[in-house]
């Protein structure tokens, strides 16, 4: 009996606290998505508005407005023109008639009566406003009473004329009531030129009075008065998408004639649908708990991508999002059921809607939600369709085909991000701003449409819109041709937005502001210079196709014969770069179909400025490939040496030139300098014969190199020259020598030998607890250098090369980024590999976009990434294997945390960059045991990237990109100007200038003596290769000599100005032996300090210490002496 309860307890124990927590954790799935949910909740908290304080006074203002409107005296019907002029005379208010205004002789009559209904609608009542949205509007709908409307008013803009008159009358009354309390102006509802509305902006000083300062949460809000039609007044059956409701000049009343006025019709339906939708959204909100928050999330997502309800913002805003979500909660699923369950949480709803948008493109296929199945497919040509059949409204009626495509694309990108469990899902989805054109599009063009001849159309979105639509169709046909291969992934048209205008003026909707065109490339297809059209065959079908093709392309199309005797219509383009090709095609085709754009000032293109700064050419790829081929030859030559005692296992390139990543493409046989060999490492098959001593291994390597050198020379005596070079090594255990192999044809390679025993010995030394600390430290550094050189770099080289083929824009982007680092004199502090990986990161995790498809977007996004990157707490993780497990990522993050704990001041580890091949994270950010860059320099990089990103965003399209590359020299305390002439002369040295020549050639003191006479005069003419770039060497010496007091900055190889900053930590201090840097006795005489003796070396017995200052002039004079003729001038700030 005793044992039974114990057993039972074990079996059915109640869930305790831990278990509950576990269940809740398990129910939310994997850790990553849980993080997303938590972050989203946090976001919702931080953007939520406190309506009571934020929109204080809104209710009072609404009441006053309502009372004012109700007090308006009704009047009987008057002819419209007469009524309008009367109003204008009496109240000095223009009636905001839509374009075209009613004719002078119009016999339409207008009357006024009290609105049949007032109601506040929109996000004010649904409480879905967020802090960060642009303008906060409180919408009040007033419904026009039925008695002043007629059923036939849906025809010929009659309703809209009446509506405009009604609005003007209301405006007059409201203005009288509010007086100076508020600013009144007209604007268009969602940019729809048919629907003017009244905006009331409270005058803040008046309204808030003296308490303004202590009301922080108060927002700048506006009240908008929206006149609308009574629900169901106009017969919906007459307003279907295909109806033609504007028949100006035509006297027949049959609805069959004329073009369908889809936009006009949908606007009319929308005018009468305010209340049905208000009700509908209320219901959804009541039914589904997560609905409101899902709407807020949706609003943020759209807002960060530049979408809004306004026509110029794509016509898909918060309202459309909410309606679509509500519709999906109600129906749209299979078998008529609801697509989404109302028990889903807000983030789940958000993800579901993203999913829906990513599989539905309204511009390509009509999307009908709700009962009934109207056939709308035929109208997709004219407008994207998202049809709510219960209310018979096309919700997407304000969208253009381009904005539907863009929305679809953004949803696709976001979905792929949300499907990626390892990436940071939150920030790209909600935080990053993704609508900056220069970040999103590869080519941006501004089309001046002033000279376009007026086209008559039945569209009421204005002239600009019509042109935009035409341009879009033309470009789409030209650039997104599936037969020939799509050149563009996305074409976007940005019509100008309409603003508010004052009560006494005409609307500016008729003006012809330029339109912006954005194009996203498919980089491989866009680089195509020959387009192959349909083949010119004998069949009628083929003939028609060719005819069609020629009609579109005009004279550009010509017949050409291709392989296998096919004859095709062909387009030949002259440009060479993807950008140039796109511009050429655009200019041609827009010119052909719209008769504009050929002139430079009519079509201005942006996006090419960056590549031209570096003069990046497509031919560069050929040069890189040539270097690669030369390396292939070199490898074959080495492998062909049969006399080597060990078999060659691998020869791997390790330099940027051989991975398409050097700023300048490799060129051979330049006469300006001695050969600058491309670095490689060679490894042999495993052997037990290496001596068991590091120094002996290094000597053996020299012997190996000598053997390879002499064998190469015997095998190809006329083609190859070799030199053994000594490294600038400090210790016998370092690598001591390399072999430079120079081909007569130009290419030169530098070979270093890999020995696997070396690694084992070094590892043993590192682990040897008995060894002295400094020896272990040295071994650690050597081991890091060894691994970097012989295992990490070859892998890196291989990986970057693969990526270059995978992403055509990677190579030029990397080169631009390196140029930027150079321009700001940062590159001395960064490894080449770091810059490459930082660039690659933008390609591997491009969210919220897709991988960059042009150098400009790649460059700008890399800068953006650098400015965002919080390297203090975040590792940069590159998923180079494509499937890095989550555990690996966690391990990397933990490693960074550990580093930060050991070294909180970041003296040894600053940036942390891990890849799948190199998870230790420090291979590319430390060099010889020192952090590269140091914390100071890393912070400088971040701040420079930040200001560059800000500049790009603020200046917009008109930015002169050269400004990004101008270094601010005034930040440096001293500038060391190198003498370009001396620098140039140093690039060439000869081994065979005899000692006595030294005196003879006094005019050329650089030709130094040599004691070797074994080379004949002819070979002596070949300059020696450069062991290291002399300017780099010079700088290296300076930084070793002045590691304490000065930090030096320098860009690339041809940068002739070295910037230097005094280390701010080096101030007046107590004198002792071995201070870092040169010091002078302090001017203020010695002061006794109580704790002066703390860092003495015991040399000073008095316990008091004299103070010294850094001897700046002394140090600079020293630098001048070290540099001698190399330093032209030392410029001191403030001097």
């Amino acid at each position, binding site marked *: 009996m005793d044992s039974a309860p114990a057993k039972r307890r074990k079996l059915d124990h109640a869930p305790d606290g*831990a278990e509950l927590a576990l269940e809740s954790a398990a129910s939310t799935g994997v850790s990553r998505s849980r993080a997303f949910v938590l972050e989203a909740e*946090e976001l919702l908290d931080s953007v939520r508005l406190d309506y009571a304080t934020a929109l204080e006074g809104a209710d009072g203002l609404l009441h006053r407005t309502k009372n004012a409107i109700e007090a308006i005296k009704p009047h009987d019907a008057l002819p419209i023109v007469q009524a309008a002029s009367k109003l204008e005379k009496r109240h000095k208010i223009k009636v905001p008639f839509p374009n075209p205004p009613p004719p002078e002789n119009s016999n339409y009559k207008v009357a006024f009566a009290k609105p049949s209904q007032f109601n506040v609608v929109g996000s004010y009542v649904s409480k879905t406003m967020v802090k*960060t949205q642009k303008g906060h509007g409180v919408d009040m709908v007033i419904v026009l009473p039925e008695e002043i409307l007629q059923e036939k008013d849906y025809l010929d803009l009659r309703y809209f004329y009446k509506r405009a008159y009604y609005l003007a009358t209301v405006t007059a009354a409201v203005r009288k009531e509010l007086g100076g309390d508020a600013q009144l102006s007209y604007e268009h509802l969602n940019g729809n030129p048919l629907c003017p509305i009244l905006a009331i902006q409270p005058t803040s000083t008046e309204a808030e009075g003296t308490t303004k300062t202590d009301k922080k949460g108060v927002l700048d809000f506006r009240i908008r008065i929206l006149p609308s039609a009574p629900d169901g007044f106009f017969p919906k059956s007459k307003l279907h998408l295909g109806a033609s409701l504007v028949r100006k000049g035509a006297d027949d009343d049959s609805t069959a004639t004329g073009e369908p006025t889809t936009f006009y019709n949908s606007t009319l339906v929308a005018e009468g649908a305010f209340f049905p939708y208000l009700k509908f959204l209320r219901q959804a909100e009541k039914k589904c708990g997560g609905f409101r928050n899902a709407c807020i999330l949706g609003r943020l997502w759209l807002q960060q991508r530049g979408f809004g309800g306004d026509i110029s913002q794509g016509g898909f805003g918060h309202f459309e999002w909410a309606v679509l979500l509500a519709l999906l909660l109600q129906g749209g699923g299979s078998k008529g059921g609801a697509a989404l369950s109302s028990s889903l949480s807000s983030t789940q709803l958000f993800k579901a809607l993203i999913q829906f948008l990513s599989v539905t493109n309204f511009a390509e296929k009509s999307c009908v939600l709700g009962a009934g199945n109207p056939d709308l497919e035929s109208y997709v040509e004219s407008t994207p369709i998202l049809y709510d059949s219960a209310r018979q409204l096309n919700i997407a009626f304000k969208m253009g085909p381009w904005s539907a495509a863009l929305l679809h694309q953004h949803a696709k990108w976001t979905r792929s991000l949300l499907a990626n469990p390892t990436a940071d899902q939150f920030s790209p989805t909600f935080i990053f701003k993704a609508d900056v054109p220069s970040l999103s599009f590869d080519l941006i063009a501004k089309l001046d449409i002033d000279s376009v001849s007026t086209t008559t159309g039945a569209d009421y979105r204005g002239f600009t819109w019509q042109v935009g639509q035409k341009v879009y169709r033309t470009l789409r046909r030209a650039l997104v041709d599936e037969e020939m291969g799509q050149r563009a992934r996305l074409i976007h048209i940005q019509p100008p937005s309409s603003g508010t205008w004052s009560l006494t003026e005409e609307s500016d909707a008729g003006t012809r502001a330029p339109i912006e065109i954005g194009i996203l490339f498919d980089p491989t297809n866009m680089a195509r210079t020959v387009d192959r059209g349909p083949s010119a065959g004998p069949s009628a079908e083929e003939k028609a196709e060719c005819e069609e093709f020629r009609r579109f392309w005009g004279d550009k199309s010509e017949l050409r014969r291709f392989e296998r005797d096919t004859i095709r219509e062909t387009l030949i383009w002259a440009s060479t770069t993807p950008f140039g090709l796109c511009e050429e095609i655009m200019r041609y085709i827009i010119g052909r179909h719209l008769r504009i754009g050929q002139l430079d000032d009519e079509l201005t293109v942006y996006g090419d400025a960056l590549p031209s700064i570096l003069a990046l050419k497509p031919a560069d790829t050929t040069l890189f490939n040539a270097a690669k081929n030369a390396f292939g030859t070199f490898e074959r030559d080495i492998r062909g040496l049969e006399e080597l005692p060990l078999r060659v296992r691998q020869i791997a390139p390790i330099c940027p030139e051989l991975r398409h990543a050097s700023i300048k493409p490799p060129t051979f046989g330049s006469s300006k300098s001695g050969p600058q060999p491309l670095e490689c490492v060679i490894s042999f098959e495993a052997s037990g014969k290496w001596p068991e001593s590091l120094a002996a291994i290094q000597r053996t390597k020299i012997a190996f190199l000598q053997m390879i050198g002499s064998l190469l020379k015997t095998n190809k005596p006329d083609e190859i020259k070799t030199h053994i070079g000594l490294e600038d090594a400090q210790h016998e255990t370092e690598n001591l020598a390399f072999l430079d192999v120079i081909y007569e044809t130009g290419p030169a390679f530098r070979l270093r030998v890999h020995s696997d025993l070396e690694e084992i010995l070094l590892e043993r030394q590192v682990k040897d607890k008995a060894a002295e600390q400094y020896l272990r430290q040295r071994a650690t550094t050597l081991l890091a250098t060894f691994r970097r050189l012989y295992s990490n770099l070859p892998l890196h080289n291989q990986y970057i090369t693969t990526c270059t083929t995978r992403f055509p824009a990677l190579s030029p982007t990397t080169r631009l980024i390196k140029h930027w680092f150079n321009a700001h004199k940062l590159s001395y502090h960064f490894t080449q590999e770091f810059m490459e990986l930082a660039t690659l990161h933008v390609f591997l995790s491009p969210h919220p976009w897709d991988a960059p498809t042009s150098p400009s977007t790649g460059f700008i996004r890399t800068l953006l990434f650098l400015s965002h990157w919080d390297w203090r707490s975040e590792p940069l993780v590159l998923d180079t294997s494509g499937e890095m497990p989550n555990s690996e990522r966690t391990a990397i993050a933990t490693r960074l945390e550990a580093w930060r704990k050991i070294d909180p001041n970041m003296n040894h580890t600053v940036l942390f960059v891990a890849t799948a091949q190199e998870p230790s994270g420090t291979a590319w950010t430390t060099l010889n045991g020192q952090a590269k860059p140091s914390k100071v320099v890393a912070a400088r990089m971040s701040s420079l990237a930040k200001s560059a990103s800000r500049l790009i965003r603020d200046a917009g399209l008109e930015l002169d990109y050269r400004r990004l590359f101008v270094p601010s020299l005034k930040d440096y305390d001293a500038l060391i100007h190198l003498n370009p002439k001396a620098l140039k002369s140093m690039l060439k040295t000869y081994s065979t200038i005899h000692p006595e020549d030294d005196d003879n050639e006094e005019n050329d003191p650089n030709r130094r003596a040599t004691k070797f006479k074994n080379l004949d005069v002819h070979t002596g003419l070949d300059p020696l290769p450069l062991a290291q770039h002399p300017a780099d060497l010079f700088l290296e010496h300076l930084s070793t000599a002045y590691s304490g007091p000065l930090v030096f900055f320098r860009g690339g190889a041809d940068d002739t100005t070295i910037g230097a900053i005094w280390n701010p930590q080096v101030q007046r201090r107590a*004198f002792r032996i071995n201070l870092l840097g040169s010091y002078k006795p302090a001017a203020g005489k010695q002061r006794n300090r109580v704790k002066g003796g703390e860092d003495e070396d015991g040399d000073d017995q008095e316990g008091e210490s*004299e103070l010294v200052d850094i001897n700046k002039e002394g140090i600079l004079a020293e630098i001048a002496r070290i540099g001698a*003729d190399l330093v032209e001038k030392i410029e001191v700030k403030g001097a």
Partner: protein
Amino acid sequence: MPSTPSTIGDFAILPLSIPPLPAFPQHAIHYLYVRRNAPKMPTATDARSLFLTNVPVDSTESHLRAVFTTLVGAGRFEGATFEDERKDAYSQGAQSPIDAAQPAHAAKLLQAHGKKRKREDEAAAERAREEEAARLPSTWTRPLRRSGSTAVVLLADEKSVEQVLKAIAKTHKTKKYPAWGGGSGSGGLKIPPLGSVWLKTHNRLSYPDSATLQASVDAFSTLFARREQEAAEIAKRLRNEPDEDGFVTVTRGGRSAPASRNEAEEAKRKMLAKQEKKKEELTNFYRFQLRERKKEEQAELLRRFDDDRKKLEAMRVKRGKFVPEA
């Protein structure tokens, strides 16, 4: 500077006047701090040497010779040792290629038993000569010193030390500071120039001719082979000889040659594979293992859940994270 103190701590301050250069046309003054040399480990020459700190980066012996000549006249200056050179002398291992090259156990053995066989001067000189031959040629015509580093100057006799210190005190009165220029005018050795010539020469010296290099490498391997041989012999001797307490030192290498590294690695791999296999067979074999695994997984899930919360908490501290960019 209006007036420079003549001493700081127990150092005398010796200001050096630096002639202006076209690149930096200012007349600068460098401060050298001088005192009697009193190292922690006294040497025979301490009495007639001076300790200098904050020597200029481009110092050479000739530079210092010129300065001291100006102070006390010619013939008093014997030589100078700079900090970097002294360090090398102190830790021989870094400088002598062979010592760095010797296998660790050989080095230890030699150290332990080297004392017994007192080398004559001749042998030591021979050894130094051999090592010199094995050394690679230097690639620099002259080194740079670290800024703020030290040097020891050896003078002719103790009296000169006094004189120098007196002369330093006098410069403060007369304000005639010795000029820093390496005595290019006076007859000293010609100092190799710095600047582009220096760098160019370095580049040329980086490519020594192959004969020199070959000779150095050959000398090294001979030396290395011989040292290894010696070490092996000592080891062999020790293997058989009990020391005074009757113990035999255990040394590496027995009668049979050690197994080759590859074989050893192979054997290790095999053993690991075997272990792995055994382990795999026994996982999820018992029910308790399954239960425990499940428990572990749950704990892991909980832990991650907690981690997320903590991370969020940390981000909340930073706050800015949650506001969408405008």
